[in-house]
């Protein structure tokens, strides 16, 4: 639960970024798509990691904010015709507001009940977009604009550039959330997670902190959603299904929950594995399900913990 020593953390971050960069250079067209999807999933997983890993709030409705961000971008950018950058900012703000509204009710509950109310909230949002007419209901809506970076010579319409953009945003989100996690705010969230009663007795308005974490996580999830909408220029209610929330939760747990880099690596693992398995068999979900059941059961601390455990063992072997 204590944040990792800073030195190793930076090394791992650079290694991960280098791996992504190497893949970007080596991959073909579809690889760029997968890379962008991985970056987006990593952002979503990092946002949920703040909730689950730091504050101990297990949300099963996180995809709702992802979807709301995507739909808000479609609304502001395509329907209202705002410039994409402004529309993106407004979409992130919309995600934050939505998270605030849900959070006001949800943070008063704990454990399984928190899981259930976030599930209910997510399903409500999903039902709303299934029904709505402005964004095409079940069929979704195309024509979501991409960020215009031509001023600095980047054509985001090009998939290779867009993959880089998504990676860049993921790195920015990492730096931001890393800062947050290591700050007194992050420490307070961990304190609440470890012992809520004590945190309260020390003077911590626990509900407000949980709410703040929920809003930040919602905003970052919405940011991921805006990228997802830009990637395919398209939004549909699929973005808000509760099974997506569950998948991201698995990614977070496999990644070690609290480790931003761990969950990012797990996002890459998730996307890569799904791609590899689905080229092998139409029943890839069976294999994915089995693999993740085993991972959740065995790797208690996720990738992060497994790597650290291995590191410790190696270090011991080298020792006297």
């Amino acid at each position, binding site marked *: 639960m204590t944040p990792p020593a800073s030195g190793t953390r930076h090394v791992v971050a650079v290694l991960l970024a280098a791996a992504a960069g190497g893949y970007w250079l080596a991959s073909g067209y579809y690889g760029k798509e997968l890379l962008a999807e991985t970056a987006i999933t990593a952002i979503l997983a990092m946002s949920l990691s703040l909730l689950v890993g730091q504050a101990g709030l297990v949300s099963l409705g996180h995809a709702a904010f992802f979807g709301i961000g995507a739909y808000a971008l479609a609304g502001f950018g395509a329907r209202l015709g705002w410039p994409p950058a402004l529309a993106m900012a407004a979409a992130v703000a919309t995600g934050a507001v939505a998270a605030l509204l849900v959070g006001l009710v949800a943070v008063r509950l704990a454990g399984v009940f928190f899981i259930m109310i976030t599930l209910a909230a997510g399903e409500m949002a999903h039902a709303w977009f299934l029904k709505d007419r402005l964004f095409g209901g079940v069929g979704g809506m195309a024509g979501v604009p991409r960020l215009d970076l031509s001023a600095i010579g980047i054509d985001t319409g090009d998939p290779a550039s867009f993959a880089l953009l998504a990676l860049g945003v993921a790195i920015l989100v990492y730096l931001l959330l890393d*800062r*947050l996690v290591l700050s*007194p705010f992050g*420490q*307070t969230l961990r304190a609440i997670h470890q012992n809520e009663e004590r945190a309260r*007795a020390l*003077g911590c308005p626990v509900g407000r902190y949980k709410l703040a974490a929920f809003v930040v996580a919602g905003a970052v999830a919405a940011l991921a959603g805006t990228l997802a909408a830009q990637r395919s220029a398209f939004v549909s209610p699929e973005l808000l299904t509760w099974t997506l929330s569950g998948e991201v939760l698995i990614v977070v747990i496999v990644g070690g929950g609290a480790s931003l880099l761990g969950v990012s690596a797990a996002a890459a693992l998730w996307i890569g594995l799904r791609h590899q398995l689905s080229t092998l068999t139409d029943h890839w979900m069976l294999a994915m399900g089995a693999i993740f059941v085993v991972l959740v059961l065995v790797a208690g601390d996720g990738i992060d913990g497994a790597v650290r455990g291995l590191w410790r063992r190696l270090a011991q072997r080298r020792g006297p």
Partner: protein
Amino acid sequence: MIPAAMPPALAADGLRKSFGALEATRGVSLSLPPGRRHAIIGPNGAGKTTLFNLLAGALRPDAGRVRLGSADVTADGPDARARRGLARSFQRNSLFPGMTVEAALMTAAAIAGGLGAVFWRRFDRDRGLADGAAEIAARVGLADRLAVPVANLAYGAQRQLEIGLALATRPAVLLLDEPTAGMSPEETRAMQRLLAGLPRTITILVIEHDMDVVFDLAERVTVLDYGQVLLEGTPDEVRASDLVRRRYLGDRTG
């Protein structure tokens, strides 16, 4: 015009609390001037823990008021009372098991200092918090164990940290819930020394079973029985009281 007297650091007035048909607290009043060491004793089931929770804010009274200094905190929760300078320890250790001693003390100070809203600075590089943690650790006898994970501390040391977390908030009023519970005689003596050494700027109210600790520390003692104040007085008065001897002390000391 008569100059207003200095308000008591902690006061309770006519506190009542029932759980269903059970009346746990039946009109208890207390008043602790600043700097006072005050103990609450009473047989099991006398309502000590309920009263403690009413004062700490973990429970809301059905009737009566709680004041901290000049502020009425009856409606406040435990966190709001803590922000007004009230700190408490727990009868069963309630720590941050995933942190080191230093991090736990820093965390307590950060929360109490309202630093929790700061998200742009590194927590672990805050010199002020670290220095404060070292000072508190020295005070509670954990100076040599700053880097030890809380979960790895021995029981007695965890009890000391329990007090340390409360002290880290720089409280004006400190509520201690059986600080020596489960300790060996040696550890108890260390705790006694620790408590005796606390500065007079802190007002202390303690619930305690160990009468040696009580009579050593307290300047005034409230004896609770069936949720009511049986007697309040100096330790000597309490020791001398036939009533108390019959109801309570007699059973123990013979």
